[in-house]
């Protein structure tokens, strides 16, 4: 009886908007105390974070992403992509997709992309005679594309919690990530043809100018992806080099950020996100150890396996479950469910690396789902449009993304062939 009351109270607090780490912390405190274990055990678990080398990658990639977002890098990325692929039918839409995907990968969170890049490309899309509905849908969708590409923070967090090699996850994410971009690109090209948007001829001179503009930033993705895939770098080393390089380039070469004013402001700002993530991670470490101690994953599996016997049905349920989770919370909080689903999924013979990709792909799409997907809120806020209108505009994109999601979920080889 008492437990039911506590559970209901906590659920109510979640929806009233209590910081999620306090909810997770409350459950951990309550759980350990009810077992007669000293709650200091939660802190022992939190401190285990400091033994993971990849912990350092989190603040370094975050600050690098914030430096890029606050500089004029988004403008340079769009200009370059426009010169490179803008001549194709539906080219501008593909430009938006590609720029957003790269940008999301670097900044980790999806909200940032819509705010930083969406505002930049939305008016251009309208000026090129794309319909407002298509433009809104595209920009909202693009806000989370790219979560599967290195150096995305959610991948790093998944690896930390599922105890899977992050380098392997980065390898696994690339093909599924490209698939999601491709299905949207195909739809955009189809739309571009149908509505006959004007096309621009390809010009070497324009490409050269744009290339000169972005020359200092161009090496970054190659460097990170090449370094990690080639085995020259660990994710953490890549983060260290990226943060330092981006700082030098944006502050001293492009001079987009002023050393005395912008730099401290952006550094502080980025650490607010890191702090929010660390709070969740810390308490979630405690909760995880409690749940494992209580053999909750085993019980969960025993329960589910009575109803679900086939892998396919389990994957379908998993998709539904993750879409619901992802609709309500952003990726950094959703990571809490990882320690629960990994052991259960492994019983069904699902590779934890593949599961990570499924997890992120689902959340990426869940961000767009009405009524409460995060991207809808961000876009509504950024473009001052009602949620309902955005939801309708995003709908065709969700349908198309589902095709990609089904491929990614039910064809594990897509994720695993680069890993082996």
């Amino acid at each position, binding site marked *: 009886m008492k437990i039911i009351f506590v559970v209901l109270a906590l659920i109510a607090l979640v929806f009233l908007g209590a910081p999620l780490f306090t909810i997770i912390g409350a459950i951990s405190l309550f759980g350990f105390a009810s077992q007669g274990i000293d709650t*200091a055990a939660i802190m022992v678990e*939190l401190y285990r974070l400091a033994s993971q080398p990849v912990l350092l990658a989190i603040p370094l990639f975050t600050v690098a992403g914030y430096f890029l977002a606050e500089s004029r890098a988004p403008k340079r990325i769009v200009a370059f992509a426009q010169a490179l692929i803008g001549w194709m039918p539906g080219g501008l839409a593909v430009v938006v997709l590609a720029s957003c995907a790269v940008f999301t990968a670097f900044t980790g969170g999806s909200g940032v992309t819509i705010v930083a890049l969406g505002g930049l490309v939305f008016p251009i899309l309208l000026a090129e005679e794309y319909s407002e509905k298509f433009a809104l849908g595209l920009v909202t969708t693009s806000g989370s594309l790219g979560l599967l590409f290195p150096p995305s923070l959610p991948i790093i967090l998944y690896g930390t919690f599922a105890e899977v090699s992050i380098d392997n996850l980065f390898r696994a994410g690339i093909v599924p990530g490209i698939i999601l971009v491709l299905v949207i690109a195909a739809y955009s090209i189809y739309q571009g043809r149908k509505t006959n948007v004007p096309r621009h001829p390809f010009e070497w001179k324009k490409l050269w100018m744009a290339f000169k503009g972005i020359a200092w930033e161009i090496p970054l993705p190659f460097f990170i992806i090449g370094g990690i895939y080639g085995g020259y770098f660990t994710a953490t*080393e890549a983060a260290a080099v990226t943060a330092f390089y981006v700082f030098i380039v944006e502050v001293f070469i492009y001079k987009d950020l002023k050393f005395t004013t912008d730099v401290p402001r952006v550094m502080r700002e980025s650490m607010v996100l890191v*702090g929010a993530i*660390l709070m969740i991670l810390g308490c979630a470490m405690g909760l995880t150890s409690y749940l494992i101690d209580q053999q909750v994953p085993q019980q969960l599996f025993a329960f589910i396996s009575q109803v679900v016997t086939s892998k396919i049905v389990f994957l379908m349920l998993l998709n539904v479950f993750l879409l619901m989770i992802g609709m309500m919370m952003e990726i950094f*909080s959703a990571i809490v469910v990882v320690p629960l689903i990994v052991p259960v999924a492994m019983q069904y013979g699902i590779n934890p690396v593949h599961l990570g990709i499924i997890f992120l792909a689902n959340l990426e799409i869940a961000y767009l789902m009405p009524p409460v997907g995060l991207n809808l*809120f961000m876009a509504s806020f950024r473009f001052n449009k009602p949620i309902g209108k955005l939801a309708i505009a995003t709908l065709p994109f969700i349908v198309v993304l589902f095709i990609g999601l089904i491929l990614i979920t039910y064809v594990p080889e897509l994720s695993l062939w680069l890993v082996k």
Partner: protein
Amino acid sequence: MNILKRIDQMIDSIVSWFVVGVLGLMIVMAFAQVVLRNIFHSNIEWGDIFLRHLVLWVGFFGAIIATGERRHLKIEFVSKLVPKKIHKAFLILTNIFAAIICYFLMQAAIAFVQSEIETGEILILNLPTWYFILVIPIGYAVIAFRFLVHSVVWIWEIFRGHWEVAEVQHL
């Protein structure tokens, strides 16, 4: 009330400068480690452990700032749909709850630090581990304090007839 607000703002600016300093050190040192390791095949032996502990420091300091700006991760769609007055009531309630939980987390952290002091383990360079983890109880304590101050300020505002929730400015 104004004293409370002023202390709160003071905490914010001290912590902000600290975050910038520590993060700056981390960026430079992490890069130096990579260069030393890959080019000179030697590195600062204690560097990586030290850097990982600094993550705890900037993380907790970032969380202190996040508390002041109401930017902890949370589910927001309900509070976005309700009228302003109710939103403020939600904020007060959830903040008090958060303050209580952070107080208990602080106690857990104090117990953890005490046990580390007793074992007296050395982390790096003759420095005991507990120096580095002291940020955990301090962090939770300051976060609890800020949650509480903000809810007290909001309650006080309501008594003076202000139902608006001040927007937080950032970037």
